[in-house]
């Protein structure tokens, strides 16, 4: 629904498209995150690493923890179906979904800017998506 005062629309079509996608994505993220965490905590699926082991080492830095054990990082939870079917991977995947949310919304904004023939902002939104996708590819984080 558009906020109006005597027929005036205060948000343009791009914003309304972005808002609609954002609403759907953010609600989905909340549901996926809650379900994933329940699977993890209640151990409804087998765990890659016991919760007690993670909890016993959460005072270690991320680098030290990775030297000690195989905790999920980047897209590792999707490396194989058997990995993804672990409770901790499901919960981690929900966090990955949260990190992807903005990229999905911006992708719809690119389309909306193009259809409005606003090529300047379409290019800027595309550039922004490229930055986020590069970050999501792990290219900036290599060399650990």
């Amino acid at each position, binding site marked *: 629904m*558009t*906020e109006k005062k005597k027929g*005036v629309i*205060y*948000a343009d079509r*791009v*914003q309304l498209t*972005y*808002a609609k996608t*954002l*609403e759907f*994505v*953010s609600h989905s*993220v*909340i549901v996926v*995150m*809650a379900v*994933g*965490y329940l699977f*993890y905590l209640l151990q409804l699926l087998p765990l890659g690493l016991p*919760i*007690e082991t993670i*909890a016993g080492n*959460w*005072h*270690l*830095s*991320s*680098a030290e923890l*990775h030297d000690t054990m195989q*905790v*999920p*990082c*980047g897209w590792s939870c999707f490396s194989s179906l058997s990995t993804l079917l672990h409770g*901790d991977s499901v*919960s*981690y995947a*929900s*966090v990955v979904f*949260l*990190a*992807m*949310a*903005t*990229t999905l919304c911006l992708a719809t*904004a690119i389309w909306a800017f193009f259809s409005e023939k606003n090529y*300047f*902002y379409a290019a*800027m*939104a595309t*550039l*922004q998506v490229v*930055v*986020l996708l590069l*970050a999501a590819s*792990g290219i*900036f*984080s*290599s060399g*650990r």
Partner: protein
Amino acid sequence: MRISSIGRRLVPAASAGIAVALLMQAAPLLAAAPHAAEGMAWWGWLIALFVFSFLLGIVAVLAGVGGGVLFVPIVSGFFPFHLDYVRGAGLLVALAGALSAGPPLLRKGLADLKLALPMALVGSVSSIVGALVGLSMQVQNVQLLLGIVIISIAGIMIKAGKSGYPEVKQPDRLSQMMGISGLYYEEYGQHEVSWQVHRTPLGIALFIVIGFIGGMFGLGAGFANVPVFNLLMGVPLKVAVATSGLVLSINGSAAAWVYLFKGAVLPLIAVPSIGGMMLGSKIGAKLLPKVNTRTIRLIVIAILALSGFRSLLKGFGI
């Protein structure tokens, strides 16, 4: 009616409770490493984290600050988790909060994409750099810098003013070229507000710095976005606050990937923090018209100063 009277009493009590709890915890913890303070079962820490994040969510909304800026210094100071995971969770907390608040603000024309995109583009790149620098530094140095940043934020919150409808006589050329301006309906005064901006190049430069700091410490950075939009660029306060969330969601997302790839996100810690903070923020938003926000803000400034001081001490290895 009953809820509002409960809220009026409960919220200042909750914020004061957080402050007292921190003060009580501070003394023994100042002398010990965080993991040495682990006397509780792991699930006890997670419940405490959820409850704490819930209370922080309420207080953060009422004090007009982002969740991340309170979450990182307090949780890193008083919970047994390594700073890496707290910063990772802090970024995700800020990101989730901004995402869930976004849709209504975009529809009302308060959050403005054309204003947010240029700032987010430069800010997201610098937040990635900030996250990389922060994760490569010694934890003590990060704690020390975090302490300085948090105490500075407390100072900014005391000193910085705000302007509901700043006057922009002449928009700058860059903002005119990019078509950055807008119109929204002010429900409080029942009138339309049109706005335009000036000093855009300086604003963009400052968003580079803000992005870097946000990525480095896992802070939401709304504390800095809003004054730059409002006081520097002349954006009306409500548009500044709403658009800050939009910028934050993009910058936070970019930096979050660095933390994810460096293994600095543990769902065990991140999810209850996000859940607690989001629930608390929703309650806080409902209580907002019914409580004395000035008192809450003062208590939050005190909490921030205390957390900053605690970070400084940890940075000095005390």
